[in-house]
């Protein structure tokens, strides 16, 4: 799959700084259709910041974003959605006080011909999507805050699927979940991958994502240490990249790689 010539997403030489501190410096990542790319690094390595630039939450200072080989102008979350980029945040970004259907359609509600909310139609399609994703999900009438972490995460993922996301960004998707729910999200990622969706997985815990990812990008101090196909490197080697910035032979070094003296 990685042999395809045009990447789905290509972020080139992205930089952003907050108050003089370079949160991300000259970082380049790419993602192909049907591929899962893990972005790894310590807390504060800049991975979340980099990906928030793609999802439109932050505005980059420098660099280009290409979607399907064309320059994309992403200034806010609405722009990102136009390019089929959907984000699932670690903080479980759902509105707690409204029900699952309202969350699935938040910002893009179905309306009747009189311009009123078509709650019934929204609930019907929410039931359909959730049925495909998580057949055990039955609590459609309750506010989302009454749901478990895994159920809420499946609401967030269903939301992305419902709008035909082509690029899915998952920021610590399993951080708030128990082991069983984590496994469930893993299955879900494999299913989305089969449908040709490109997925960015962001995590500071390599064990969460190593088995799911096709490639890993490692970031340290705002720079890309390097990237590698998961079959070419071991977990320990990737840990070395995360902790020391040391690039193993199987990986391609980036601007943040440790200088070999």
């Amino acid at each position: 799959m990685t042999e395809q010539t045009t990447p789905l997403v290509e972020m080139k030489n992205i930089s952003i700084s907050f108050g003089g501190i370079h949160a991300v410096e000259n970082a380049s990542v790419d993602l192909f259709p049907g591929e899962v790319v893990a972005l790894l690094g310590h807390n504060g390595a800049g991975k979340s910041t980099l990906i928030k630039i793609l999802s439109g939450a932050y505005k980059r200072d420098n660099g280009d974003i290409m979607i399907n080989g064309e320059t994309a102008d992403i200034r806010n979350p609405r722009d990102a959605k136009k390019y089929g980029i959907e984000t699932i945040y670690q903080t479980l970004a759902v509105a707690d006080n409204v029900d699952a259907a309202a969350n699935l359609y938040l910002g893009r509600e179905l309306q009747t011909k009189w311009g009123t909310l078509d709650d019934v139609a929204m609930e019907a399609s929410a039931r359909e999507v959730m049925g495909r994703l998580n057949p055990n999900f039955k609590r459609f009438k309750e506010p989302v805050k009454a749901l478990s972490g895994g159920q809420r995460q499946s609401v967030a993922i269903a939301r992305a699927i419902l709008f035909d996301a082509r690029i899915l960004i998952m920021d610590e998707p399993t951080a708030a979940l128990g082991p069983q729910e984590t496994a469930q999200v893993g299955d879900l990622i494999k299913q989305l991958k089969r449908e040709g969706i490109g997925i960015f997985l962001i995590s500071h815990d390599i064990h969460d994502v190593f088995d799911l990812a096709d490639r890993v990008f490692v970031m340290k101090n705002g720079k890309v240490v390097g990237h590698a196909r998961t079959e070419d490197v071991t977990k320990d080697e990737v840990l070395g990249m995360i902790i020391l910035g040391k690039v193993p032979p199987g990986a391609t070094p980036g601007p943040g790689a440790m200088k070999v003296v």
Partner: protein
Amino acid sequence: MAETMQSTTNSKTSAATGQADGNFVARFFRATEIDTRMLGMIGALLIIWVGFHILTGGLFLTPRNLWNLSVQTASVAVMATGMVLVIVTRNIDLSVGSILGFTGMIMGVLQSRLLPELLGFDHPAIWIIALAGGLIVGALIGTLHGVIIAFLGVPSFIVTLGGLLIWRGATWFVTSGQTVAPMDVNFRLMGGGTEGSIGATWSWIVGGIACLAIIAAIINARRQRKRFSFPRRPVWAEYVLVALGCIIVLGAVSIANDYYWPINIARRYAEANNIAWPEGGLLISQGIAIPVLMAIAVGIVMTFIATRLRFGRYVFAIGGNPEAAELAGIKTRWVTVKIFALMGMLCAIAAAISTARLNAATNAQGELDELYTIAAAVIGGTSLAGGMGSIAGAMLGALVMQSLQSGMVLLGIDSPFQRIVVGMVLVTAVWLDTVYRSRAK
């Protein structure tokens, strides 16, 4: 995973059936889907009413007092509907009383000073131009507040605290502190009173339409659920709801119709229309007061906005999780501006009601109303933490507040002590609500 899920659903269904088998009351509420919280408020209201009725020796639950109560509640109830949206989005509006004063003064000056010079005294268009002028000014003030809050990032507490002082001061400047009176003849109808009520026949017609609307709404909801084969209420529950709704509506109409014109006004009316004065006095029903109709109409429109339109959905989503709402692509800042603009317009409607009722626009109009409005919304179940609240609840809250005040007036309690009681009730109500919510979880 599947097993645990299965077992939880099983235990849940067994629990549900257990409850359903349990007692009749629980089954009744489950089937009718009546909000128990709202019911608690209605219960509290009834306790207040009956309590005052006993304490005042039968003065409270009379058609006359209930009719007055409805008129007195109208102004704050109108503003409370907007305050719900403001508080739901984790904002506050302390300036509503001052906006009421300012827009009231603008409408007063328009109808009793500027427009009569242009159009002539008591011209039929004066009231509508004055009202429109007030609405526009209210909307502009609200928009200004909203823009400062949303785009300049000044907290709403501060912006509207400033607004409280600014618009009260501005009210004074419009006429250098003079009271403007009297109001236009047609404008005065919005204040209620004998002329500002719609009489027995029209009241019954309005009541009948309301009953038909209740029936239509329930049938429509049932049809919608059927279309997508969602679970439906049992048929008997639907009948119970229709019956309850119609009894409440028609009961209210009959109470309003049981309050007759005061003898002097009826006598003057009889003389003017050459009606012989009957033995037992001429009994002409007041019917529903126009300000009450206005408040109900505002309540219906606001409920529609809050629950049926995208805008309302966004308001609640922002209140629940502002970040999620922003990331979902909602223009949260514009929603905030619209909420405050709406609040400003509602202040103008409330100002029309209260100036028309007083038949004058004064400097002090609407003082402390911001607190009563906030109290009404909060007593009505609007959570200051954001994300929760209902329009109907806030209007009921306004009725609770007004009932307390009217009852204490009837009891002859001094006004400083009235405030002490109102303050204590507010704190207690919110405490009870907190207890209820933590239990509900």
